[in-house]
């Protein structure tokens, strides 16, 4: 199967290096995972629990009772019986879910930006309506970033993965650079 990699979904301003406030430690560190494999799976009616069991058996992940809080780094819960499976082979995912769920390759449809750093909470406070105190590490949230639909995964205290639709990613990235300028943004 051929692979098409489009160059930069985050726009011309998203370049490696320091942006905004240039003194001291960067408040925000950001990376974009290019060429990442992302498969969206959605359980057919009544199949959410068997789907979780199949994913756990096939990929060794722990998905709990299907709540967003019970996600995995590579299985981000975006709705009831809905997951973004990240970094797994597309055919392996389709084989694992069988006829329990629809599985669609979204590798070129979704963009993941990971942010970390001491000012991440202050940055998210401008864009995201969620209460970070009620958001466990290892938990996902389907919500919005500004007006843009966004799936979040919390890696650590200050570390978050943001999944945008590709055609919204440049807008989100531009805003992230503007809003993060006061903290300093280091793009790796």
């Amino acid at each position, binding site marked *: 199967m051929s692979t098409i990699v489009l160059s930069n979904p985050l726009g011309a301003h998203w370049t490696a290096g320091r942006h905004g406030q240039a003194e001291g430690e960067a408040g925000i560190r950001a990376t974009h995972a290019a060429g990442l494999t992302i498969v969206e799976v959605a359980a057919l009616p009544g199949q959410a629990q068997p789907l979780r069991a199949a994913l756990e058996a096939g990929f060794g992940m722990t998905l709990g009772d299907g709540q967003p809080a019970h996600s995995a780094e590579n299985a981000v819960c975006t709705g009831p019986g809905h997951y973004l499976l990240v970094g797994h082979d597309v055919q392996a995912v389709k084989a694992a879910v069988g006829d329990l769920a629809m599985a669609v390759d979204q590798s070129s449809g979704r963009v993941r930006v990971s942010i970390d750093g001491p000012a991440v909470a202050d940055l998210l406070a401008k864009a995201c309506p969620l209460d970070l105190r009620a958001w466990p590490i290892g938990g996902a949230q*389907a*919500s919005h970033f500004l007006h843009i639909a966004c799936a979040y995964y919390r890696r650590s205290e200050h570390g978050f993965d943001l999944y945008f639709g590709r055609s919204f990613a440049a807008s989100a990235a531009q805003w992230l650079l503007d809003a993060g300028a006061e903290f300093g943004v280091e793009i790796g």
Partner: protein
Amino acid sequence: MLIPCPHCGLRPSEEFTPKGLAEAPRPVIGGADLPEDATWQDYLHTRTNRAGDTDEYFHHALGCRSWVVVHRNTLTHEVYGATMASEFWAQKNQQPEQETGQ
């Protein structure tokens, strides 16, 4: 207004699209069961606009994409709770409205 999505937890109403009362099933369209004009007239235009407790559809469009039924009071804006639409109709022992003829 905050809406307690059964899947996502407490979320701002801006994430939801209101979709009207969950008490008036959409008339079946298509086949031999075309609704009477008067039935459509009632469904489309004759609304009670109730002042008080209501059950309303909301689509969690900027979230988990679930259809939920929100139980709230249109006078006080108090939100009592929310139920997945499928569970709401199962509890009522009725079929959900048919989405056909799009």
